[in-house]
């Protein structure tokens, strides 16, 4: 564990503090940032035990001694830098994170309409910035590396709402109907409490769980090989 001392001033946030340390005290210090505004999710780290965004954390809200750790679960690059990208890409591939439809795309056609409620609900879940805080604070994800985490289940919920996606319950069941998906969640809800974007993760995890329980008792599809 390396220690640094820094003088606090009003408005100082962790992101600026880390930059000052890198500029003035240790040029080898590794941490990630891009947007500085809580939008990109790059500067997520464990701040005094709780995952959070460095750019959204004012030093004045923390005690005098601040302990920073890299996010667990993800591959460590160095110091406070972790590779969330690989994890999220694999999750997106597993979740089939795109609109599944057999309709041919017509670039000339007017876009299909959906209700305002549906659009708003999709938008709400699309606000996920893939920072990885929910995954890092999840008991199951910390114990079992194949668990899709709240971010993965939230992604599935987003496509379940989307009327353009033609997947049905049994299709989603193939993706999240296991202990690596909906049934791996133990309901500790640290994800819901810690999400820096305040996504409604509890209700979305419950939505996916209910849909998967229903799919588990639906008649099986006949598959011909």
């Amino acid at each position, binding site marked *: 564990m390396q220690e640094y001392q820094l003088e606090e001033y009003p408005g100082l946030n962790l992101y600026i503090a880390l930059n000052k340390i890198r500029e003035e005290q240790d040029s080898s210090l590794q941490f990630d940032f891009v947007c500085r505004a809580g939008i990109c999710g790059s500067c997520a780290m464990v701040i005094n*035990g*709780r995952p959070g965004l460095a750019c959204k954390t004012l030093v004045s809200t923390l005690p005098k001694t601040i302990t920073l750790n890299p996010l667990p679960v993800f591959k460590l690059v160095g110091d406070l830098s972790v590779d969330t990208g690989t994890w999220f890409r694999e999750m997106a591939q597993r979740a089939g994170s795109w609109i599944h439809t057999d309709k041919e795309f017509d670039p000339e056609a007017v876009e299909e309409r959906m209700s305002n409620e549906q659009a708003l609900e999709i938008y709400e879940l699309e606000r996920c910035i893939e920072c990885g805080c929910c995954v890092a604070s999840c*008991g199951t994800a910390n114990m079992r590396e194949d668990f899709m985490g709240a971010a993965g289940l939230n992604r599935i919920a987003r496509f379940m709402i989307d009327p353009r996606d033609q997947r049905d319950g049994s299709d989603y*069941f193939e993706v999240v109907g296991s202990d690596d998906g909906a049934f791996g969640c133990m309901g500790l*809800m*640290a994800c819901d409490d810690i999400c820096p974007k305040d996504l409604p993760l*509890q209700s979305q995890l419950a939505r996916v*769980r209910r849909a998967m329980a229903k799919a*588990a008792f639906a008649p099986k599809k006949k598959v011909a090989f």
Partner: protein
Amino acid sequence: MIEQWKLLKNPRLAARFDLIGMVTGLLLVFFMFGHAMMLATIVFGAETMDGLSMWLEDLYLAQAGAVGIVFVVLIHFVTAGRKLPLRVNEQKMIWRLTRRLSHLDTWLWLVQVVTGMLILLFVAVHLYFVLTTFPIEAVKSSTRVASNFGYFYAPMIIVIWLHLGIGLYRIFVKWTPFNRKILKVFKWLLILGFIADSLLVLKTFWAIGLQYVN
């Protein structure tokens, strides 16, 4: 590439285990509500409780219930216990996360794991003494409590209601979109209310038993 669990004969097993874990948990919750209410009849006197237990025994509900509950407890343990951190590495990871995170619901999950293990021990000892001294009678139970067995039942009460309250809360959290702030209030009301009620009933048993022990 294909995930091989999908090729298994029944890939729906995880869902079914999860549901069975929940249903058996709910059955045990309802059983404990009934059990607590029936025990509370001691407050109205030993005759009231004996009358109720005789009625249950005449209908073989007490005998069948005891066997049935053992089965339900075991099924619940197997299905809900799938989530237990059994490997040393998993234990280290969850312990490190819980200590760092200072998140009450994560701590309470660990409480549920530990109380779940303790309940198996408590239930085994409790059932042994109840079934080997059948039929259930108020004086018999009171004497057992007053013969220092109350020190066994007092922690058992706390352990059971903690496990039950946290478990019921987590079922609602996992399956419903209800507001967690409200659920948390109900959880603590249920846990503290039933612990207080059960300790009061235990005290009544103890007071009756002392008359016979002395």
